[in-house]
Every structure is written in structure tokens, then in C-alpha cells.
């Protein structure tokens, strides 16, 4: 069974031509999406730029007619030409405004209604958890999660580049009608375009190179303005030191960026100098023709008008090119996410239904798991049978693999080796959603959703998220009725402090998460990973007593299995089966009494530390017995090992 899906590096993955092909395919995809979402607005993205190009060309032509007619004294043509120029000018202004409005609506609609939901659904409905836990991947997700707008914009920026080039070409062809020699200006127009682009690249590079100090100043600013960070910063008198570092990081980023802007200005000036030299020569030619009578003063007006518009077109073209280049920042991770999701979904989900009730139990057969990028395995060769109806406790030091084992049961990861059997059926072959629908779980780092208390609980059973009776019962189940009574708006109390909500303490959040886990009516599997670390003794006691009742009740009905991770032995000893893990390996299995009887056993040692601490007379407790120290090898820990 293959362990990890491809997570190739998005930055180096694609060869340039391959990349352009991928971009092109993406844009075609987005164009189809836009057309389906808003055909009129989509069509306007082509009609309006074409119209704008026409007003520029038409205006120049009309001016030529007007000036020539004025000189000739032809009132009719002069008036017609001038009026034409006026219409073109006004139309240019109106089309410019409409362009911005229609693009704003279209891009927003496609991003909010189509692309963003697609991205969010991909991120949140992938079965596994690895894409959220690996920091390298998490960076990409952070970029892509709000990128819909920028990605759709890139399509219309590319379109804008196309039209800018088209406009440039038409204008130069127009000059060619005055004198074919002027077609040479095409070459001169390419110079500022190219130099501008170089300058812009310097700016983009500087932006990337200074992303780090920029992020740092943002981080420090957020710390200083947040009440949580504000507490510690005040007590430690670190305000000035933090402010100094914030300002220094800002200055560092801006110094480099300013230098890049100077370089860009240098390129641009050089480009326009060359262009103006060429254009000056062209004008001299036009003036010469006009003075010799082979051309007209109107030709000159045409040439000059075109020259002014030319700069605008070059600017527009460069700006759109920059947008496209900058969008690569989000397009690359987006394409990566699409591939990743496709690869993940192709690893066929199981189709076996989740059992109604457990008959036999859950069996680990040589299960191993290795976090991508970690130095050693998190779990190795774990073989054990968790009998149907049993309450199983996991014990071990920090980083011994307890949480990993719990997550494997929730299908958050797939084992790298071995397999997990549910009543003899490999867990991989059981369909994920129905399996999870029978799980009640509280994790160590549980979710804190930025919404009302009631909803935070009700999320534990979506169909009944509005069922206040059920929510109240779940709250009662975990001894949190007192907590709700003290909340200013009861179940409707907002919990996001940033929006006027109540700031819950760690322990209160823990009760909220426990209540959420109590929502589902008939779980087949209870997973409790350090569910009470921040709770006071009576709450902890109460919650465990009730959990035991729930577990036993469920065990009687469906032979449900309960898996509890805890550092507190007062909660472990009542389990039917205790598993002691050490550095990813299962070292002891048995009941409390059996494990205590193991001479020099790990469980017995850990247990006695605590027992001594409680049992001895007087307030001086036992010191630390000898033994191997704890070692951390958990996800997210990327400190290089030795």
C-alpha cells in the first residue's frame, strides 16, 4: 500500500513550455466557467477592449480629417471630423468606466460562486489530514484558500495583454498608411515594452526577496495589536523592542524594494529614450512629407495622437503582463492542489459499509506510520486486538505515537505498512464517510470555530445543528451546563472575541469540544485524545464518569470501542485494556493489574511517579526515577534530528 501521495514541489515542477500549456488550459477552463456564469459580462470583456481600441484609432483618424479640412477651409469635413473626435473621446471615457465595472462583477462572481467554493471543498473534503499538517504544503494552502479572485483576474489580464498588443499593432499599421517607413516604429515600440518588462521583473523579484521581513513586520504588528500578545508584551516591557523590530523589518523590506523601483525606472527611461529617438526621426519624416506637399498636417496630428496613445498601450500591456506573472504565485499552488486532490481521490475510497455493530473488534496488524519529512517512524509494527465493547487506554510519554494511533483509527492517515481490520474488514476498504459518521472524537488540539457556542457544539451532528434540545443534552452530558448558564447569551453567545464574542478559557473550550463529541447518538467508536488536560478535578471526574457510562451503554448496544489517551492515571486505571507506547512501538499490553506486575515495566514506573505524588504523606513528593527521557517526534516538529 503506497504511503504518501505525490506532493511535488510546485515551484520547480513545470518546465516553462509545459507551464504555459498548463496556464492556457486553466484559462480555457476559467473562460468556460465565466461564460456559463455570466455570458453577457464575459462577452463584454472582449467587446469593450475592442471598442476602446477603435476609439483610439478612430479618434486619431477623425482628428486628421478635421485638421486637414480646417486648413483647406472645408467646413463640412472639419465639423464632421471634430465631432467624430469628440465622440471618440467621450466613448473612450465611458468604455473605460464600463470596463472596470463589468470586470469587477464578473471576476467577483466567478471567484465567489465557482472557484473559491471549489477550492474550499477540495481542501475540506480530502479524506486525509496530511495536506494540513505538513508546513510546506500548508503554506500553499494558505496562499490558495483566498486566491479565487486573483486566479480569475489572471485570465482577464492575459486577455488584456492580448488586446494591448493588438491595439499597438493596429496603431502602428495606421502610421504605416502615412509612410511605410513608419512601420519601423514597430521595432522601436518593442524596446520600451521589453525594457519595461525587465524593470517590472526586478520589482517582482524584490517583492519575493523581501517577503520574509515583510511577513515579520506583519507578525509583530499583529502581536502588538492583539490583546493576547499585548498582555505579555506589556508585562515584559517589550513594547519598544517589538516596535523597533517591526520598524526595522519594514525598512529592510522597503529599502530593497525601493532600489528595485529605481532599477526599473532606469530601464524604463532608457527604453523610452530609444523609442523617442526613433519616433522623433519618424516625425521628422512626416513633417518633411507634409512640408513638401506629399503629406498633410493631418498626418502629423495623426502620428502625434498615436504616439500619445502608444505610451498608454505599452503601460497597459506591461501592467497586465505583470498581473499574469504575479498570479503565478497563486496559480502554481492552485494547479498543485488540483493535481494533489485528483491523485488523492483516485486512490479509491473503500466501498464496504460501516458495520451496524461490532462483533469481533478492531485489530492492528503490524501497523506502521511515518510522517513525511520526519526522521523516524511515528508508529512501527503495532499489532494488537481491541475487543468489541472494550475501553482501551493509551499511555506513553510525549511523542510516543498515541495521537497518531488515534488518528489512524479516524482514517486521518493511511498506514504505511500493515493494516487495521474492523471485524476482519480492512479499514481501507470501509467507506470513509459512513465510518466517520459512527465516530465520536475529541482531539488534543480540537477545533475552535469562530461562531456561536450552540453552533460550536451542534457541529458535532450537522443534521441537528439547530436542535437546541439535543445541544442542551450534549452540554449536560459533559458537565458544561454551568458554563452555558454563565455565558451572557447562553447557547447564542458569540465565541469569536474579534467580533465582540466571549473569550473562553482553555478549560471552557475543552468542554465545548467535548459537548460537540457528545452530539452523535450512537457511535461505534469513541476517540478521546487528552480530553481533559485543562479541566479541574471535579469536571474531569464528572466527564470521565459520564463517558464511562456512555461507553458502557454503547458497548452493550453496539459493542462500541472506546480509545482514551491520557496522562492522568486516575482516568486510565479503569480501562479494560491498557496499551503502553514508547517511541512509536507498543511495549506493553494488559490490564492495570497485569501491567503493574511487570517488574521495571514502563507503565508501572510512570504510574508510580504519580501514585507517589498523591499517596505520600506530607507535601514533599517523589523525585524523578531514572529512565529514558521523553523525546518528541510529532507532526509539525521539523527540528532536524541528530
Amino acid at each position, binding site marked *: 500500500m503506497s504511503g504518501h501521495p505525490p506532493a511535488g514541489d510546485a515551484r520547480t515542477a513545470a518546465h516553462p513550455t509545459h507551464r504555459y500549456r498548463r496556464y492556457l488550459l486553466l484559462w480555457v477552463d476559467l473562460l468556460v466557467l465565466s461564460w456559463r456564469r455570466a455570458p453577457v459580462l464575459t462577452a463584454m470583456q472582449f467587446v469593450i477592449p475592442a471598442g476602446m481600441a477603435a476609439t483610439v484609432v478612430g479618434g486619431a483618424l477623425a482628428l486628421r480629417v478635421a485638421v486637414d479640412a480646417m486648413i483647406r477651409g472645408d467646413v463640412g469635413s472639419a465639423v464632421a471630423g471634430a465631432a467624430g473626435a469628440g465622440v471618440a473621446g467621450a466613448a473612450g471615457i465611458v468604455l473605460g468606466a464600463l470596463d472596470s465595472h463589468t470586470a469587477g462583477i464578473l471576476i467577483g462572481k466567478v471567484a465567489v460562486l465557482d472557484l473559491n467554493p471549489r477550492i474550499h471543498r477540495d481542501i475540506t473534503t480530502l479524506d486525509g489530514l496530511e495536506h494540513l499538517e505538513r508546513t510546506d504544503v500548508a503554506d500553499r494552502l494558505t496562499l490558495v484558500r483566498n486566491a479565487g479572485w486573483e486566479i480569475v483576474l489572471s485570465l482577464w489580464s492575459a486577455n488584456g495583454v492580448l488586446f494591448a498588443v493588438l491595439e499597438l499593432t493596429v496603431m502602428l499599421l495606421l502610421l504605416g498608411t502615412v509612410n511605410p517607413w513608419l512601420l519601423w516604429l514597430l521595432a522601436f515600440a518593442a524596446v520600451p515594452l521589453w525594457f519595461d518588462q525587465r524593470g517590472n521583473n526586478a520589482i517582482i523579484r524584490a517583492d519575493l526577496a523581501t517577503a520574509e521581513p515583510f511577513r515579520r*513586520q506583519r507578525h509583530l*504588528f499583529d502581536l502588538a495589536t492583539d*490583546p493576547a500578545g499585548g498582555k505579555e508584551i*506589556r508585562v515584559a516591557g517589550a513594547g519598544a523592542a517589538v516596535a523597533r523590530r517591526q520598524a526595522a523589518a519594514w525598512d529592510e523590506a522597503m529599502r530593497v524594494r525601493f532600489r528595485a523601483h529605481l532599477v526599473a525606472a532606469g530601464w524604463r527611461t532608457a527604453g523610452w529614450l530609444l523609442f523617442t529617438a526613433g519616433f*522623433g526621426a519618424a516625425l521628422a519624416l512626416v513633417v518633411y512629407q507634409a512640408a513638401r506637399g506629399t503629406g498633410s498636417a493631418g498626418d502629423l496630428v495623426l502620428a502625434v495622437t498615436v504616439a500619445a496613445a502608444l505610451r498608454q498601450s505599452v503601460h497597459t500591456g506591461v501592467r497586465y503582463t505583470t498581473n499574469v506573472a504575479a498570479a503565478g504565485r497563486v496559480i502554481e499552488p492552485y494547479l498543485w492542489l488540483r493535481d494533489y486532490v485528483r491523485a488523492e481521490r483516485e486512490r479509491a475510497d473503500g466501498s464496504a459499509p460501516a458495520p451496524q455493530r461490532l462483533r469481533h473488534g478492531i485489530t492492528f496488524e503490524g501497523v506502521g506510520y511515518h510522517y513525511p519529512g520526519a526522521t523516524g517512524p511515528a508508529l512501527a509494527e503495532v499489532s494488537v486486538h481491541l475487543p468489541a465493547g472494550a475501553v482501551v487506554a493509551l499511555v506513553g510519554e510525549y511523542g510516543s505515537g498515541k495521537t497518531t494511533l488515534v488518528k489512524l483509527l479516524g482514517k486521518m492517515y493511511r498506514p504505511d505498512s500493515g493494516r487495521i481490520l474492523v471485524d476482519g474488514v480492512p479499514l481501507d476498504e470501509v467507506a470513509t464517510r459512513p465510518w466517520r459518521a459512527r465516530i465520536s472524537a475529541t482531539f488534543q488540539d480540537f*477545533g475552535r470555530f469562530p461562531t456561536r457556542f450552540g453552533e460550536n457544539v451542534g457541529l458535532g451532528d450537522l443534521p441537528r445543528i439547530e436542535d437546541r434540545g439535543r445541544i442542551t443534552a450534549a452540554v449536560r452530558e459533559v458537565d458544561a451546563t454551568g458554563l452555558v448558564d454563565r455565558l451572557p447569551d447562553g447557547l447564542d453567545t458569540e465565541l469569536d472575541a474579534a467580533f465582540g464574542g466571549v473569550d473562553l478559557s482553555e478549560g471552557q473550550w475543552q468542554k465545548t469540544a467535548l459537548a460537540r463529541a457528545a452530539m452523535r447518538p450512537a457511535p461505534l467508536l469513541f476517540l478521546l485524545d487528552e480530553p481533559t488536560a485543562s479541566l479541574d478535578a471535579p469536571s474531569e471526574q464528572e466527564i470521565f464518569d459520564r463517558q464511562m457510562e456512555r461507553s458502557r451503554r454503547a458497548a452493550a448496544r453496539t459493542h462500541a470501542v472506546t480509545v482514551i489517551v491520557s496522562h492522568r492515571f486516575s482516568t486510565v486505571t479503569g480501562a479494560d485494556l491498557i496499551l503502553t507506547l514508547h517511541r512509536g512501538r507498543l511495549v506493553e499490553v494488559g490490564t492495570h493489574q497485569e501491567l503493574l506486575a511487570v517488574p521495571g515495566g514502563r507503565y508501572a514506573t510512570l504510574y508510580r511517579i504519580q501514585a507517589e505524588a498523591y499517596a505520600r504523606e506530607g*507535601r*514533599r513528593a517523589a523525585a524523578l526515577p531514572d529512565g529514558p527521557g521523553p523525546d518528541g517526534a510529532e507532526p509539525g516538529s521539523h527540528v532536524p534530528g541528530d
Partner: protein
Amino acid sequence: MALLTDVRLLAGALRAARTPLTAALALLLVLGALLPPASAVAMAHLVGRIQTAVPTDAPLSVMALPLLAFVLVLLLGHVVDTVAAPLAFLATARVDGAHRARVAGLAAAGTTIAPLEDPQVRALIRASRADPENWTEHTPGAGAVAGLRLAASLIGVAGACLVLARYAGWLVPALLLPALVNGVIRQREAATGIATWRAGTVDGARNQRWQHAATSPAEGKDIRVYDLGDWLTARIQRHALAMDAPVWASLTRAMPREAGQLLLVGVPLVAGYAVVAAGAAGAGADRVVAATAVLASSVAIFQALGWSEDLRVAVSAAGCLRATVDLADRLPAPAQHAPAPTADPDSTGTARHGTAPANGVDGTARAGQPVRRAGPALVRFEQVSFRYPGIGRPVLDRLDLEIRPGELLAVVGLNGAGKSTLIKLLAGLYEPDEGRITADGVDVATLGATAWRRRLAIVFQDFVRYHLPARDNVVLGRGDLPPDPAALAAAATDAGLAPVLERLPAGWDTPLARTATGGVDLSGGQWQQVVLARAHYAVRMGADLLVLDEPTAHLDVRTEFEVFHRLAANRGGASVVLISHRLSTVRQADRIVLLDGGRITESGDHDELIALGGRYADLFAIQARRFAADAQAAPPGEPPEGPPADPPAGSATRTAPGPAAAGVPTGGGHG
């Protein structure tokens, strides 16, 4: 008037760009705005020369000078444009840098944190932080430069009007008036549009929060177990739509009006052009020259006064500055009763390192070296009451508490009993509603926050994880004194940080964030060690009251033991206040107090409180029950011995008898 306020705010923001830069930029922008009419005139003159040259067969040289002039004007236009860009960037960077320093300074000012927790203040900080999250937000720097550009374009309009006047005076009002009317309408459109976006910022921010939840590994597990993916996607979209749908509607409504411009702009333009052309046709060279100049420059008047991105940016940025003004009104001004302020409020790396008192924090203390004191103070809470705004029940209710010099005091209580609040009051982060807190008899409020806090080292539950080098993460435990390498090394030893440091690729210089070059992410346990080192550093730098708020909640048994013993051994003479639910740890304290119903109801050492048979005894019995239950069953393992932690023994006295002992459970398993 709103417009004037906006102009004033934007102009005020420009001060941070400093005069020479602003002047240079303004000059370039004005020049750039005047060049189009100038080039129209230059072109018209060329036309005039051609007109007169063709019939007279004049030498080509008469054309050379005007041609050269025209090319130079054209070139100048390009150069001005390109040179203005980096100056505009620099001005934007300076204004935004100063603005962000100011907002951070405002938030950091004030000794208490109560204002920062006010939802309205938080909303204002969001609105004024100048860190655009979406396309509706613009920074003060961008707004100030856009404003400058708008002002320059008005001067360009004046230049264009001069060109009109040369042809005929009546042309000026005929074109300028409709352009002005159109300009006012466009400005109001922009303001309405921005008001519509503004109305959606709360939903925008909520949308961001949910997006964060969607990608967070913590929420990710719940999302998977409870199958929340589709629900969450819909929730994100709901907030996005609440923010964006009104904007789409307003843009859609605006479109016919935009098309209506065709009348306001087109009619005067077409009519004016037609009249000018008719009047100039065949009317002599001067007339034609003037008319040509008019035809070439008038559209620019409408462009300058019409819709522009600059207008939108300026109006949006002015909104950010207004929020900053409101924020400043709501937050206490920095250093009210400070002596001569020695701190540079917008220090940009030039501040005398460490010699300045904390920025914004009440600066009554003399700056300088760690203060040597005789010993830790006797700290007393005297009849202290406190309630959170909007919550009826007081958290602390006429509470009395002593923290005796050098003692290891444990504070115990149920969840929500107010333990953390007690710590915040101790640190002056909240002010008591009633009563006072004294150190050696002196009200700490009169000591000044800086002086008092130099004596404190606090490990909060939600401690700060600076994305800075490991060294900074420790020395910022005492940020207002110059970093002391000796204290740093000692603190690392005290906290047992060596194993963590050894694994950092660049040792102390390793940034503790993977997003930084050469940086690493630490695990939760490793962070906890770093933060303990931070607290030890503060102690080494003169703090003599160390407070730990649940420092070991997620540590395993063995690590918890190590941490506690290390702490007890290495605290020097400092007093220690420990908050914990683990009574096996708490029992080792010199004295234990129980916080219940907003008051201290029990006080004494472990044995005394057990003997008292009160609430503490209850709590302890609950946790100890299991162990007591199988004390007999367990084989007689050798009780591990070792050097006991050795805090100076305090003479504990029972200050408040607890409630009557209520049926203390005595062993016996349950369930």
C-alpha cells in the same frame, strides 16, 4: 465637510514622507499633468508652420525648432513619468511605515489591556491597520500619493483651460462646467461604492476566519470526523456573498449612469469641437493652430475630472485614516504622567537600545540597569473586586490574598474561578474595580506600571511565539533592558533549554518559524521550554515574582516533574505563583490557596488543607482516589527517592477556614 476632512487627513499623512520627497514628487506630478496641454500646443505650432510652409515653400529649417521642441516635450513626459514612479513608491512606503508604527504604538500604549479587548476597538484596529486583505482596502500611503496625483491633475486641467482660452474665452466654461458636474457625480459614485464595501468588512473578516479554519489542522480533524466540508464551504461562501453581492448590485446599478456620461461628456465635447472646427476652417494660420490645440487637449479635462482609480484609492485610504482618528480617541494617550519622555515614539532602529522605557507603557521608571533590591516584596490583594464589562457577576469579589516574599504559592480553583484574571490584575493589565494591590505596603498603581512589571515574570497560557531568532524569544522576556548574554546563558541552563538549542541549526540565531530563512517550527513541548527560559531570563534580570499559569497542562508526567523541580531549584530568591490543576504538583508548594466564588476560601500547606477537610481536600481526593484505591493491590515497588525540591519553608497559616467538610470521599474505586 467630509471631502475636506479626507483631504486634510491625506495631506497630514503625507508629512511622514518628509518635505523634500513630497515636494519633488509634487513637482514631477504637476509637470507631468501640464505636459499634455503643452504638447498639444507644440503640435499645433508645428501644424501652423506646415500650413504656412507648404504654399510659401519655406525652407525646412523653420520646422526644425518646433519639431525639436515637440520631441523634447514628449521625451520630458516619458522621463517625468518614469522618475515619479520610484519616488511615489518611496513616499508610499514611508507613509505606510509611519502609519503602521503609529497604530501599533496606539495599541501598545496604555497600561491595561481592557481597551484592546473592546470589540469596537478591535474593529477600528482592523480598519486602520493598513494591511490590505482584499481589493477594497487601500493604505494611507497609496491614498496620499493618489491624492497628490489628483491635485496635480487639477493643475493640468487649469493648463488645458489656458489652451481653450487662447482660442476663445467662452470655451472654458462651456467645457469646464459639464466636466466639473461630471466630476462631482463620479466622486459621489466612488464614495457610495466604498461605503458599500465598507459595510461588508465584518463579513469579509469572518470569511477570512472561516477560511483559516478550513486550512487549520486543529479544525481539520473536526471537519473530517463530523463531515463538515460542504457545510463549511457554504458558510465561507455565505460571508463572501454578504460582502460582495451588494457591491455587484451597486456596480450593476452604476452602469447605466456610467453610460449616461456619454451625454454629459459627449454633448459638450462634440458641440464644442464642431463649433471650434467650423470657426477655424479656412480662417488663417493662428486660428487653425489654436483650434488644433483645443481639439488635441480638451478630452483630457474630462478625463482628469472624471472617474479614476486614484479617486477610489484616495477615498478608501481616507476611510482608513478616519478609523485611526477614532482609534486614537478611544485608546489612552501614551505616557500621560510620564516625566520627560525619553522614548522615541516612532523609533526606526535608531533608538538607544534598551535605555528607553517601554514605548507607550507608563514610563515612570528610570531606565537602565537591573534594579537590585533587598528581596521580593510582600504582595497583598486588599479587598479587590473585578468584573468584566457586560457580565453581571463579579469574577473577584472583595478578595484578600498575600504573596509572601520567597514563597512558592499555588493557586487552585475550578475552571472559570478567576485564576487567570487574578494574574492579570496582579500585573496591572486590568485595574481593580474596588480595593488595591500593594507591594510592601505601597499601592502598585502608584509605583508605575514599568517599575512594577520589572519585578514580574509571567508565563501566560497563551504565551507569545515570536517569529524571531531563539535569542530574541528569550531576551524579550525583559524587553526594556539591554540584552544580557550572561543572563541569557544562565536562563537557558535554568530552564534546561540545552537539548532544544542543540537541535537548532544556527543555535541562538535560528528563527523559530519555518517561514523564515533557516528557521524551524518547534513542537508544543519545545516551545514551552523556550518560554520557561524567557521567564527565567526575566528573573535573572531582576524580576522577583514569577507567575506560571498552567505551565504543564499538556506535558507528560515525567516532563512535568522535571519542569517543576527545575523551577523550584532555579528560581533564586524569587517568589513563585503557580496555577495548576495537577494537585500532585500543587501539593509541593509552600502554601496553597483555593479561589472559589471570587474569594480565597482556603489557605495553608497541603497537609493543613487536607486536615481542614475542605474543598481542596475534596479536589485532591478526587484525583488521588484511583491511586489510593489500588495502593494495596500494587506490588510493593521501591519508593523512588531523590533530592527533594527545596523551597524555603514558609510558616503557613490558615487565613480563611473553608466551608464545612462535606463528605470527603476516602478512596474506593467507582464505576
